[in-house]
């Protein structure tokens, strides 16, 4: 088993002039509009934008769930999708954690976590379980391994899901509003736990959210997207040093960054709202 290596970070994502046009019933809808974005290896990149702005289309393109209309996406200089290859093949180097969670209800926590290495035939059952138990112990999940997801609180489920993703030694974690449905207290616990996990296993994180506080607390970089069609409007570098904990939230720098980002987010939220009014 190879543990993620801190000295050789991988997971550089290059999004180059990507366009995604949906054509549901002849009426073309541009979801992503000439989007260019570079994400460094091991960087936590937070994508912020109004709901339905096309952020998820971008994530789906990286994950290989949907195709793109033009442009290209590279992972560590390997072409994922682009000219001549509109849709990438989903793979365990880019594991997705979904909005409402996608733990398999019919598998216990342990079997959920060992799913990836076992279906890839990468390790034996014993190896996979050993590694799973080590990761679970780190994440404080040691005593839930034989529970089914339905028996767990939503906060514990999210943590299990992050561990399940990390079991695959991905170079990128793709998170689509994973903490959306959580109450704010649980959410802040999740944030600290995610950072702890991140410090132990340095991966690139592509994190979609519309919660600005979450974005600045977690992110190395916050990308504010324009409302549909979606493209980067403003990129804010978060220069608060790691490791971070909840004390960051009350710091002056945090407030300043919030102010700096807020107006851009607000503008787009208004644009999205106005567009919604027009459509309605």
């Amino acid at each position: 088993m190879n543990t993620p290596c801190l000295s050789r970070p991988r997971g550089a994502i290059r999004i180059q002039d990507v366009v995604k046009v949906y054509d549901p019933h002849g009426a073309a809808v541009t979801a992503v509009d000439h989007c260019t974005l570079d994400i460094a290896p091991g960087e936590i990149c937070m994508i912020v934008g109004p709901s339905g702005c096309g952020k998820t289309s971008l994530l789906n393109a990286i994950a290989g769930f949907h195709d793109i209309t033009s442009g290209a996406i590279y992972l560590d200089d390997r072409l994922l999708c682009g000219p001549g290859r509109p849709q990438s093949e989903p793979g365990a180097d880019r594991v997705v954690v979904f909005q409402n969670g996608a733990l398999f209800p019919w598998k216990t926590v342990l079997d959920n976590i060992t799913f990836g290495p076992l279906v890839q035939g990468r390790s034996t059952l014993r190896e996979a379980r050993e590694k799973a138990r080590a990761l679970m112990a780190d994440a404080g999940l040691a005593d839930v391994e034989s529970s089914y997801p339905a028996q767990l609180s939503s906060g514990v489920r999210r943590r299990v899901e992050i561990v399940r993703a990390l079991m695959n030694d991905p170079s990128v974690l793709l998170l689509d509003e994973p903490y959306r449905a959580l109450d704010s207290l649980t959410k802040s616990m999740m944030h600290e736990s995610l950072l702890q996990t991140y410090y132990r296993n340095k991966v690139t994180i592509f994190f979609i959210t519309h919660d600005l506080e979450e974005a600045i607390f977690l992110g190395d970089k916050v990308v504010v997207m324009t409302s549909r069609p979606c493209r980067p409007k403003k990129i804010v570098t978060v220069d608060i040093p790691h490791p971070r904990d909840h004390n960051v939230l009350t710091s002056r720098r945090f407030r300043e960054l919030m102010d700096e980002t807020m107006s851009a987010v607000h503008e787009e939220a208004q644009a999205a709202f106005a567009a919604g009014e027009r459509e309605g």
Partner: protein
Amino acid sequence: MAVTATLAAKGHGRGSDLVGAGLSIGSVLILWEVMAAADLTAGVPAPTAVLAAWWNLLFDGGYWQSWYLSAFRVAAGFFAALVLGVLLGLAMVVSRTLYGITFPIFEVLRPIPPLAWVPAAIIFWPTTELSIAFITFLGAFYTIVINTLDGGRAIDQRYVQAALSMGASRMNVFRRIVLPGTLPSVTTGAAVGMGITWEVVVAAEMISGGGSSMGGSGGGTGGGLGFLIWNSYTGGSYEQIIVGMLSIGIAGYLSSGLLRRFGQWATPWIGRR
């Protein structure tokens, strides 16, 4: 008995629930006995008379032969329906083409009640036994197919995407996502199908004359429980009619109970909080 089951399933005050069930069943029996004694039941025999007839039947090999025959027919039709129904249902989940071809035919045949098939089945199948098995098969088949199909199609795409994202092959997705994801609906379909199977086998036996080439010791026994009822009716043994009816009730209760147990065992993640 069903009353006991539902009350007990709620899980509170099991003892008092049992007492309540006993009281309600007991009072109905007493009322029935009294009304029969007062000749108010229009010829329906009293519980004591039924019990006496039942007691006699317990020593009649033909009665047990009827149990065996009906249970065998139900089992044969049910398991054939389970295997073929789940296979067809899954194939329709996986293949859009097959779904497109099969579903319209299926939807035309499905509303035809199994009993409407009886004459055609008798003509088509070489033995009465096979026609009865075929009818019981039909009873469970449609329900199982529809449940499998609906269950498979209702699987959340996120599970499939999550599996793919963790490096699962298409085969893996089928085996580890589609199969377990469909299982709860299959067990539901099977439980409903089992109920229909008992309804249908009884009617099929009545209509087809029990298919009794296996003998029996007279008295209308030996041709299946449905045939037992019908024969008791033509023979004027009203006590035996009731015995037959109650026997079927017990048989249906036992088989759905067994199936429910099996379903709970096969889907341990359901209903655990």
